[in-house]
């Protein structure tokens, strides 16, 4: 009879063995995945996160524009925060450069950003990431900087606005930060007030950006800016900075929110018009012609917030590469649309729920092949503060059959 009972302990052992595996968890390091919300106790401050970079030795630096109700200058000042690899604050420093423009750049061991002085003159400021001290500053001979980008050849490209000639202003700089090439795209109307309200965070936040494309058929920049009365994505030849084509929309109320090249003339595009957001994961675009945004076949994204900011980026894993579009939904969630490169099929939609309003501002792929998302959140529904989410690559890996 005892023999008949022999398998019962085996069964119990199996159950306990299975549980033991779950109890004996794989160690997850804090830097593998975290969520951090960076609070400042002063209620009158409002943080507008702009950009984040991962430092080569680990850790992050992120940039925010800070509006202080009590400040006599209407334009937000600059705040830089250095964190450890697990998101803990190492230092946080404010400085008097105004309206910092995306993005942060790693330049010869320093962290660089573009901002303006109180006379609207654009400067490149280089900061020692170990201490936060400003090590260099360079006058970029431009006004009202709206976006900064380090291209694939290590050249600084900056978008600004010239309120004298009423033009969008794109400049490319050499290694000494001298203007190499420059181009002004006439707006043909005075949009200085809109630009000012964008810079001082009191009006609509326009999706100004600079992207890059190659072999489509030539190499160039895709610049989202005001041009010829409207908010347009203008394609500029990289060698001459002359405009070759564009995608236009209705005045300044509609536009493209992100562009990423997928291959040759195939681009991933998100846009907003008529109150909705749209996505074109693989739109055929001729960079040498002018086309209307509404002529591109698009899928609606009703869940995104009104005129949602969307960040497009590549995610390169060991087995495959993907295109990510990251944004925020009406129910206070971060959302990540993951498209497979090559097939352009949506293979995954990831949500991260919050209990307050969130806005996505920047996304980077980290050295461990995860991603870091910088955004803003209204703590207690009142105070705008930056947050940083670090995710491992696991959620992006295709499920095993």
């Amino acid at each position, binding site marked *: 009879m005892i023999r008949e009972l022999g398998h*019962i302990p085996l069964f119990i052992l199996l159950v306990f063995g299975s549980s033991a595996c779950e109890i004996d968890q794989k160690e997850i390091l804090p830097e593998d995945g975290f969520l951090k919300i960076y609070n*400042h106790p002063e209620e009158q401050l409002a943080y507008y996160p702009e950009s984040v970079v991962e430092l080569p030795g680990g850790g992050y630096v992120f940039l925010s524009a800070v509006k202080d109700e009590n400040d006599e200058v209407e334009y937000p000042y600059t705040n830089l925060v250095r964190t450890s690899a697990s998101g803990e604050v190492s230092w946080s420093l404010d400085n008097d450069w105004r309206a910092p423009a995306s993005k942060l750049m790693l330049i010869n061991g320093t962290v660089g950003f573009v901002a303006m002085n109180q006379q609207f003159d654009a400067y490149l400021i280089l900061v020692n990431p170990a201490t936060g001290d400003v090590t260099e500053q360079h006058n970029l001979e431009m006004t009202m900087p709206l976006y900064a980008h380090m291209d694939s050849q290590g050249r600084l490209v900056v978008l600004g606005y010239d309120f004298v000639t009423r033009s969008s202003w794109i400049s490319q700089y050499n290694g000494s930060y001298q203007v190499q090439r420059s181009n002004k795209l006439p707006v043909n109307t005075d949009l200085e007030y809109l630009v000012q309200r964008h810079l001082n965070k009191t009006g609509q936040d326009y999706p100004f950006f600079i992207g890059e494309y190659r072999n489509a058929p030539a190499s160039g920049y895709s610049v989202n800016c005001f041009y010829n009365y409207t908010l347009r994505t203008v394609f500029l030849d990289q060698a001459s900075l002359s405009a070759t084509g564009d995608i236009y929309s209705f005045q300044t109320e509609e536009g493209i929110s992100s562009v990423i090249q997928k291959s040759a003339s195939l681009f991933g595009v998100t846009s907003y018009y008529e109150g909705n957001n749209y996505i074109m994961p693989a739109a055929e675009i001729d960079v040498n012609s002018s086309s209307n945004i509404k002529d591109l076949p698009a899928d609606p994204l009703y869940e995104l917030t009104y005129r949602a900011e969307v960040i497009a980026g590549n995610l390169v894993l060991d087995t495959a590469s993907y295109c990510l579009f990251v944004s925020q939904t009406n129910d206070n969630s971060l959302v990540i649309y993951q498209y497979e490169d090559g097939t352009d099929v949506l293979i995954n939609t990831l949500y991260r729920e*919050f209990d307050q309003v969130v806005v996505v501002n920047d996304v980077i792929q980290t050295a461990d092949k995860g991603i870091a998302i910088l955004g803003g959140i209204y703590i207690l529904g009142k105070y705008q503060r930056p947050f940083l989410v670090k995710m491992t690559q696991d959620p992006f890996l295709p499920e095993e059959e």
Partner: protein
Amino acid sequence: MLNSTGDVTSFQILRFIRKVQHLCTLYCLESVRNPKIIVAFLLAFLLNSTAWSQGTGFLDHLRIGFGIGVNASQIAVLQTYNVFEDLTGTTYTNEYTGMLKNIGNQYFVHAEWFNDYFIVTLKPGTYTYRFKKVNDVVFANETTTQETPYLLRYIAVPLEVRYRFDLLRFRPYAGATVSYSHMLTSLDASNQTFIRPKVTAGAVAGTYIDLRYVILDLNVAYLAGIHNITSKSNRFATGNGSTFAQDDILLNDLQINLSLLFSLQKQKHYSNVECFY
């Protein structure tokens, strides 16, 4: 002793058990995944036990019943993980509500086997634990306290070994307990930040009260968690990220239980006071 009819029945049962056990042996590795095989195992166990206990007089030392109780959870923090970082250098802390505010409950089936000195008790049932995590969000002119409530419901199988003292009017006991629990699924996103199994161990003490036809078992137990119950890979997947991340914690609890037991042996004594003629 089994009669002749009983022998035939036992023989048939044993043949069936052998078949089931043979299948179980073949598929033992699959049993963890396949609920049908688990049920087959349990069936084999019940049939096995019944036949065996009939033959050995096991039932004469068996009491079964049911019970209810309350528990008070106590959280022990192993490692703190904060969502909030202060840009001015202030450190945020996480706190948990105290035991008196963490009242949960349990419902269970109570089965025990006893001899002259020891009692072995199984109390499988539903055990529910409650506690709250408290975070202060500090601003210059206001400090807001955010409370995140948790309700963790487990299917648990506590096993107790008790040493009984015979004090005539009272039948107190003291012993040790070990419990294996498995958390039930929940729609609450924050519950996803915990692993499913939980193992606790501790001490138990109590007394039996003989009420002639039934026996009451009143006991107190303190169970200490022996491992971290937080899912390390999901600690930030709280579903409402503005409040907290899950710390590494142990879930300890103090239980007070009352069971109603029925003896399966023929009732010989109706109370502690026996009359002899």
